[in-house]
């Protein structure tokens, strides 16, 4: 009886005083990714804000679009990233609809296109450095490599995570009812695409 009373007391203590809430109404991994993306927004906003301040302060240091930077190559890269976003969202849609085989190949396509983006960026950097446009060239060079370098680093991390998720998909770890990994990496991937959309305009076209 005493044991029962103690157990009952503990049970009362363990009960939350109010009914539990589910926060934002999504599962933890997804909420965690959104919070992380919120911190990423602040990171890139600070980076872009600093870039704009420097650019307004020293407009003479920047060359018109296409003079130093290779716009056609970057346009191809932009198109690649847009393509990778649609393959990613198609993978998620396939998982939701239970087409798990389609999901695997959409994920594989996303990883390959993402890796191609990194490859083209490496090609672009190589040619720019050969032309003498290096990070220490001045404020134009240092801001260009900082902005695009940080973005390229994010894409590289994304490709590594995407490869991991793709392998898990081929091992049959995702189902129609539980494909959280696919959705969470998808959110990160689309965010990286979104940042590039802004960077492409600010760094290359303006």
């Amino acid at each position, binding site marked *: 009886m005493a044991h029962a009373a103690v157990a009952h007391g503990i*049970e009362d203590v363990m009960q939350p005083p109010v009914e539990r809430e589910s926060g934002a109404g999504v599962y933890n991994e997804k909420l965690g990714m959104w919070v992380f993306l919120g911190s990423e927004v602040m990171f890139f906003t600070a980076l872009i804000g600093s870039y704009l301040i420097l650019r307004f302060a020293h407009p003479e240091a920047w060359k018109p679009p296409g003079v130093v930077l290779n716009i056609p190559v970057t346009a191809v890269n932009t198109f690649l990233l847009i393509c990778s976003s649609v393959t990613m969202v198609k993978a998620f849609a396939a998982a939701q609809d239970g087409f798990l085989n389609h999901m695997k190949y959409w994920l594989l396509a996303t990883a390959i296109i993402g890796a191609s983006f990194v490859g083209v960026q490496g090609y672009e950097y190589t040619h720019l450095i050969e032309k003498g446009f290096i990070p220490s060239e001045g404020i134009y060079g240092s801001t260009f490599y900082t902005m695009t370098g940080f973005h390229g680093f994010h894409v590289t991390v994304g490709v590594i995570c995407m490869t991991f998720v793709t392998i898990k998909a081929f091992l049959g770890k995702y189902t129609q009812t539980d494909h959280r990994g696919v959705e969470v990496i998808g959110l990160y991937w689309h965010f990286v695409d979104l940042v590039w959309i802004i960077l492409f305009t600010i760094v290359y076209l303006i």
Partner: protein
Amino acid sequence: MTHVKPESPQTPLTPGTAPSEAPKKHAHPSYIGIWVLLAVLTAVELSVAFLPWHKNVIILILVGLAFWKAALVGLYYMHLRYEPTRLRILAIAPLPLIAVLVCAVITEWIW
């Protein structure tokens, strides 16, 4: 005698949490259509950037197009349009920082 509560039925751990809180099922938007629109907007950006117009007009158009593309990705590819309101608020919470930074840039430029 301890009172053992009956186990509540296990909610399947699916993207979307408990059924009462899960986002409503929605038909997939036309992802390919959005992809085509993104590609077309990028082509328009590339054309506008080299037009012999006033620099400020070109910047305004390019920034507008960039935000349009970013909104398409956020709303449809990241599914923000279909997410619970609280998650949408969480997603846009850092955006006021952009306004602060734009103000900082403008004052830096003017002074």
